[in-house]
Every structure is written in structure tokens, then in C-alpha cells.
């Protein structure tokens, strides 16, 4: 029986929560992610940067009504990594299942 290795970038609670949210929407603002994950701005910002550095997220900073706005969007690489992560999870949950 061979278990797939879980992607360490995604295997963290906040980063996985962010990616799971972004996989369901086309794009989302920083405040939306903060509200849905109940995280602090500082921690969320650090985790988003890690995801961005891994190439999983596209982050755009802009101004809306003179207020800074951070828009996050999952990349193709991020979607593939998420799909692989879910497959790996399934292999752990259902070790006898066929691939």
C-alpha cells in the first residue's frame, strides 16, 4: 500500500482554508477571506504570501474608493496542487480504494 505525500504548503489549517475558499469563487478580497476563516489580518497576510510564493495564488493590490484592497485568485498551479492534495487525502482515508 502506497500513501501519497501531502503537500506541506497546503497541509496547514489556514492555508488550506484559504485555498478551499478560493477554489469555490473566481476571486475574493482579503477581508472576505479574513471573515470566513476567522483569522487575524497578520497571520492571514503571512499565509497568503506563502501561497503566493509557491505560485498557488495571484495577489493583486489596488485602490477602491481611496481604500487599499487586496484581491486573491487561485492559479492553475494552485488548482492542480489542491486536486492532488484531495487525491492524497482520499488515499489515506480509503487505502483499499482503487486509483
Amino acid at each position, binding site marked *: 500500500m502506497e500513501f501519497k505525500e501531502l503537500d506541506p504548503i497546503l497541509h*496547514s*489549517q489556514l492555508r*488550506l482554508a484559504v485555498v478551499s475558499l478560493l477554489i*469555490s469563487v*473566481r476571486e475574493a478580497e482579503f477581508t472576505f477571506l479574513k471573515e470566513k476563516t476567522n483569522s487575524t489580518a497578520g497571520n492571514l497576510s503571512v499565509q497568503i504570501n506563502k501561497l503566493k510564493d509557491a505560485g498557488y495564488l495571484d495577489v493583486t493590490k489596488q485602490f477602491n474608493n481611496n481604500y487599499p484592497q487586496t484581491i486573491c485568485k487561485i492559479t492553475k498551479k494552485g488548482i492542480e496542487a489542491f486536486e492532488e492534495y484531495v487525491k492524497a487525502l482520499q488515499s489515506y482515508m480509503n487505502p483499499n480504494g482503487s486509483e
Partner: protein
Amino acid sequence: MQKDTMNESESLKLITEMIGKAKSSYHSSGTGAIMWGIVIFFCSIFDFLEMQFHFYIGFDIWWLMWVALIPQLVMVFKNSKNKKFVSYEETTMSYVWSAFGASILMLMFFNGYYRPSHSESLFLMLFGLPTFITGGMFRFKPMIVGGMICWVLFAVSLYTELKINLLLMALAALSAWLIPGIILRKKCKTEAQQ
């Protein structure tokens, strides 16, 4: 949300929870549906009354549709400014309704140019299309039923005269947009209070 280690079932639970949260974040207030429902209902009834009682107000009442475009555009602009996220469903819907708007516009020009008979039937058929898709996409039964009613009215309109077809259009506006819009608005208000 600080924990860095999770077991597999916790990961799956978190993914499901977050996808659910994102999906339930999108709500339509029903304002657009109510507004267009009222405009088309009013124009159809007014046009019917003009024919029935032989009077004319000096301009085509359907020009009100162009006036209604202004608050619609303001609403779209305002919403896009305040939006915290953009869902895939919303994007698809905006394409569907834009295609519908463009088709209605082309049909209006076509009617103005060729003045074909029973063109109201084509409007009824078109009314049903985006309504049915929207209802199906958001699993919102009143709009699915509304879309289907438009198609039934389309079939009926093939056998009735213009005056009656205007009443059918009013009925279509009521069942496809006005009533579902009011239900949506009520639902949105209830959810906001919770």
C-alpha cells in the same frame, strides 16, 4: 485558525466547511428581478389598455425599458464596487443575462424594421430562457417554474391576437420575475436578520 497539524479527516472536514461557506455567501436581493418585472408588467398592461380603449400617449410606452436601464446600470456599478468576492455562478449569470439583453435589443430592432406578426411570442420564448437557467443554476424553484410558464405562454400566444398576447406578456413578467423577485427579497431579508 492557527493550528498547523491536522489529520486527514480534519483536512477533509475543513475543505467541506470552507467550500460550503463560500457557496452560501452569494445572495441575490431580487431587486433587479422586481424592477424588470414591474417595468414589463406595466408596459404590457399599458399597451393593452391603449389598444382596448383606443388612446395614445404620444410615445411608445416600451421606451420605458431604456429608462429602466439607468437604475440597472447604477445597481451593477454599485454592487461591483462593494463586492468582496466574485463567484463563478455570478459570472456565468452575468453572461447569460447580457446575452438575453442583447437578444431582446436585436429583436426590438428586428420588429421595428420588419414589423412581423406575433413577434410577442418570440419575446415570451426569450423571457423563459435566462429565467429557467438562473432558476436551475441556483436551485430556485420559483424561477424554474417562471421560465416554464413563459414557454407555455409562448405556445398559447401562437393562437391568440396581439391584444391578448400583451396580457400574456404581463403574466410572464409577473411569474418569471416579479413574484420570484419578491420571494428572493423576502428570503434575503430573513437571512440578513439571522
